[in-house]
């Protein structure tokens, strides 16, 4: 990697420097233990489910705050999840070797299948939540944001669940 250059990969949403840094990080990290990786997967899934439940409840001020906190927590969990798998799920081919490309592509295949199923579930929930709209923003909006975050996290979630523990 050219130290002067820090390419941004638009499709993947990562920079060359951050991917290389995470891939070569030899510092032991709790995030990269199997237990922690799987806990993160469960936490993201629970967070997304919580968003779904919140969207079905009639609007109140407290619920709006809860939605905001949930979205913030989901974003934090998403970033931690990416770190736990060394950004492999979001890295471009040119920064990965053949094994990393293989596990990334396998994770994307599983994530795509899961996304197809989850899309139907979220569409139904979205229609129910949006039909009960009582605010200008619409009850379905936080649900949609939660779903988008879950969709973005899915490849990393699959990878985090399946990767063996590091050395």
């Amino acid at each position, binding site marked *: 990697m050219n130290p002067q250059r820090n390419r941004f990969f638009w499709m993947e949403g990562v920079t060359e420097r951050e991917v290389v840094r995470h891939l*070569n990080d030899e510092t032991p990290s709790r995030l990269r233990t199997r237990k922690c990786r799987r806990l993160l997967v469960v936490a993201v899934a629970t967070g997304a489910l919580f968003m779904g439940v919140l969207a079905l409840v009639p609007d109140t001020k407290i619920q709006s705050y809860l939605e905001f906190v949930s979205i913030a927590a989901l974003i934090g969990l998403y970033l931690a999840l990416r770190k736990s798998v060394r950004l492999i799920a979001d890295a471009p081919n040119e920064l990965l*070797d053949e*094994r*990393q490309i*293989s596990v990334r592509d*396998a994770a994307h295949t599983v994530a795509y299948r899961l996304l197809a199923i989850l899309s139907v579930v979220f569409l139904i929930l979205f229609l129910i939540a949006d039909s009960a709209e009582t605010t200008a923003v619409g009850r379905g909006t936080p649900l949609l944001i939660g779903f988008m975050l879950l969709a973005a996290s899915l490849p990393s979630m699959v990878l985090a669940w*399946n990767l063996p523990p590091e*050395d």
Partner: protein
Amino acid sequence: MSRQKEDPVFNRVEELRLTRGLSRQQLADLVGVHYQTIGYLERGEYSPSLVLALKIAKVLDVEIPEVFSIRPFKKDK
């Protein structure tokens, strides 16, 4: 994630690497992969592509059947 579960490929990468005094990082740099990939390979958790197997054999200066096999290696080898 699945290929090696179906068709295990046995190897002597660690043994040959150590006899040549190479670290995982050094071997990884010589064959152009991440150092962790060498670890996965040595533990039998990943089966390399033909290109990578050829590169490893070349760096270790042996023929492919001396490093990789679909049958377990005899211990005295």
